């Protein structure tokens, strides 16, 4: 490696940053990123103070959001933890938008700023632009406009119908937020102008449809009979609970339907992020590591700089053992970084084992392989596809099964030849949202009777629902307006029924 050693070539001298040096670093890092084929949205780098960082935290990183007490709660929690020094603020927040907004905290030194630029502005940014989930489910150029629209709409509702009313509706929507996404169907991209233009029309039509569904005017007997036959509603179970409520709840006001829609859209926007944590953080970490080292190789930064960087990097990708007091699950930065790095290694210097496991990958150009892996997968499939025995060995992974009726937990497989396949499967499953979240769908509505609604929970591995269930059903009931019950089923047997009748709220 040829390395220029003249100090005057360095992009910055001291630890302090300045706007000029940030710009310099951004240009240099951007140049290298381009050489590696990182395709990004334009960057908008914002320098903010730590207080502003806390604000950003509290609003799930969004630059603007509607008002809700839960964000206040989040803010207070962050503030308290930060003040007590229990937690450093994560040094980066990046928003999947175009331009891609990244925050730099003014308290950080030059090295950290460069790290964040590499990590967020080129790592995450290229992931947002490249990964198929983001391409399919989100529209980066429209999100900010949509947020503006949502904030304004909810503000108007608060003025018209009172803060309390709006808050109640939002509470209920938030409780069901994770069940407000379409998992298979591609949504229509968000567009502010369209949203606005269609909104009034939609309100009326929606109400009209709902009214049709609940029409109580007597109809001729013949029609009645044929209706009764098809009285199974919905004709198929519905997994998008919020969507179902928005379209079919009989008593909701048009503005409430719109609020459900807003929450639904937000859930949909975050859906890809929930499914690509390991891939996304791993990708960003891999690139900040690669880009920063490249800066050093090209003589743009000095030894002190790169040593300091390596220390931060090591902290970021550190994985404590399961028995460590610092253990809180698998660190997505660590796992993702390890997989991408290992991919590169396998392409460049494969071992015998790699050739057996990944005959399609070895000896191919690593950059191409990495981009392929980033573009076309989500965490679950990514791990299933690319987690190598070496990484499993390095992490010393082991799989545990815990059966309620068994007083023991059992180690099913460990990082050895017999275990690799099953272990990888087990780990991949862990990142499968439909394994993590219970399967709850709208089963039927008593259209011509008491309008009660039945939700069905299909048990997976005999795992019951958590203690919140009754509370969430109450929220569901608030939106539905009539009796709601939830049946927890294993196969066809109903094991448990939660009931929320029309009197209790």
């Amino acid at each position, binding site marked *: 490696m040829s390395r220029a050693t003249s100090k005057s070539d360095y992009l910055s001298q001291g630890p302090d940053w300045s706007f000029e040096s940030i710009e310099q670093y951004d240009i240099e890092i951007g140049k290298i990123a381009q050489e590696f084929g990182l395709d990004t949205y334009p960057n908008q780098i914002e320098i903010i103070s730590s207080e*502003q960082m806390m604000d950003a935290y509290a609003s799930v990183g969004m630059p603007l959001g509607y008002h809700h007490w839960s964000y206040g*709660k989040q803010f207070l929690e962050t503030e308290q933890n930060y003040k007590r020094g229990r937690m450093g603020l994560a040094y980066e927040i990046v928003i999947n938008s175009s331009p891609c907004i990244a925050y730099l905290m003014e308290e950080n030194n030059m090295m950290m700023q460069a790290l964040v630029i590499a990590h967020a502005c080129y790592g995450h940014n290229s992931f947002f632009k490249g990964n198929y989930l983001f391409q399919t489910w989100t529209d980066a150029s429209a999100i900010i406009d949509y947020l503006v629209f949502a904030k304004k709409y909810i503000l108007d509702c608060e003025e018209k119908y009172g803060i309390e009313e709006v808050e109640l509706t939002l*509470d209920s929507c938030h409780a069901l937020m994770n069940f407000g996404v379409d998992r298979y169907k591609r949504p229509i991209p968000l567009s502010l102008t369209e949203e606005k233009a269609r909104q009034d029309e939609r309100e009326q039509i929606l109400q009209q449809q709902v009214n049709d569904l609940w029409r109580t005017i007597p109809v001729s007997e013949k029609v009645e009979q044929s209706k009764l036959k098809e009285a199974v509603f919905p004709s198929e179970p519905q997994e998008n609970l919020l969507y179902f409520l928005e379209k079919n709840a009989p008593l909701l006001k048009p503005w409430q339907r719109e609020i459900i829609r807003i929450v639904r859209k937000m859930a949909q926007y975050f859906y890809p992020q929930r499914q690509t944590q390991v891939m996304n953080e791993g990708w960003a970490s891999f690139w900040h590591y690669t880009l920063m080292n490249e800066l050093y190789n090209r003589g743009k930064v000095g030894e002190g700089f790169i040593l300091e960087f390596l220390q931060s990097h090591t902290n970021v990708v550190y994985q404590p053992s399961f028995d460590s007091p610092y*253990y809180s699950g698998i660190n997505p930065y660590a796992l993702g970084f390890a997989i991408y790095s290992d991919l590169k290694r396998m392409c460049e210097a494969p071992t015998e084992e790699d050739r057996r496991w990944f005959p399609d990958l070895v000896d191919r150009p690593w950059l191409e392989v990495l981009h392929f892996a980033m573009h076309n997968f989500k965490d679950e499939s990514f791990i299933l596809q690319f987690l190598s025995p070496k990484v499993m060995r390095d992490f010393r992974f082991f799989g545990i099964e815990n*059966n309620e009726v068994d007083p023991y937990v059992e180690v099913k497989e*460990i990082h050895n030849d017999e275990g690799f396949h099953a272990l990888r499967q087990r780990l991949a499953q862990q990142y499968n949202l439909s394994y993590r979240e219970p399967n709850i769908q709208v089963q039927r509505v008593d259209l011509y009777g008491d309008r009660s609604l039945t939700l069905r929970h299909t048990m997976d591995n005999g795992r*019951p629902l958590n203690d919140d269930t009754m509370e969430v059903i109450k*929220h569901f009931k608030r939106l539905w307006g009539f009796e709601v019950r939830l049946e927890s089923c294993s196969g066809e047997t109903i094991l448990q029924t939660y009931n929320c009748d029309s009197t209790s709220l």
Partner: protein
Amino acid sequence: MSYIIDRRLNGKHKSSVNRQRFLRRYKEHIRKAVEQAVNQRSIQDLDRGEQITIPKRDIHEPHFGHGQGGKGSIVHPGNKEFASGDRIPKPEGGQGGGSGQGNASNQGEGEDDFVFQISQEEFLDFVFEDLALPNLVRKDLKEIKEFNLKHAGVVSEGTPSKLNLVRSMRNAYARRMVMSSSSRRKLAEAEAEREALLDSASSAEEKARLVWLDEQIELLKQKIESTPFLDTYDLRYNHHIKEPRPSSKAVMFCIMDVSGSMTQETKNIAKRFFILLYLFLHRNYEKIDVVFIRHHTSAKEVTEEEFFYSRETGGTIVSSALKLMHKIVKERYSPDQWNIYAAQASDGDNWDDDSRICKQVLAEDLVDLVQYFTYIEITPRDHQSLWYAYEEVQAAHPDSFAMRHIVEVGDIYPVFRDLFQRRQHESSH
């Protein structure tokens, strides 16, 4: 292409609305915490906000999820000695590792309480929500003895000592400009014409014109000269108005019975009441003096420490304290300058004869001096003569005298609120 934007100057309180929403939603919790805090604080300790603790389950946002039970599966890193097939006994009541995936870091805190800070300002807001100082307004309007002179612009009439020279001269200059402007324009024209004629004048007609012009110029100059330099209507005088200065000083008298019948618990109840009153006054006045008077058969001015924690035995003569207060007011706290508040706490014991004297001292000497005199009787027993004597005072002076009965700690805050409840007719202030 990247844009680099400095946002540090943007507002940093973007979350304040959400924070307020949160405070509003958990008002009841916060009020309870505030109440407790009030009971625990020392009287003059208010330079801080308060830490509010809410049980986590009360602010929990529910979501559908998997509970404990069934068949769980998880992968952990950092294996040291396990081999496949190992069976490990579950820890008693532990989490077993059934479904530890997901946001482990969020759940790591378990059933901890949710803790956050409210500022001093917010703290006091909660303490004194809907409370108003009695008689504050009345004193401001009626009995003000001090005034500030305040500039109130300039006027055209006044005494010479208040003449505003600059404004007067400026007016005069402007007036002179206006009054002489047409003359000066004519003068300029005439001079220009004369200048032109002077060189080329040859005919008699032109010479006559020149002479005429000279006369005109002389006339115009005189006219300009005669414009008065200073006229009466140029004069401007500084205007001052007398602005009443509301007294920003208050003195609070804490009077407590420390005879043998007062237990430490009773004193603590009294202390809490005094704290509330102090906090309350502190919000309304810039400067507050606190005078502690304790008494058994004789009264004495003491420090806070001594007031609450030293014990003495003996009988009880309440009037001694009232007399001492009257004396202190006369010596140190002129009612013209001070807003005087008094809070008396007692278990109601008094020498029978003395209650009559108390009533007399109060009604004749003290009531007219103070803004508000509150008496709380802390006793589970029946009232004694002092209560009945005070009742008469209250009947005669309902605006500046109030009394309430407290049995236990929980009564303090409600009684305080009751005493200082914003009255209907004051609500607009």
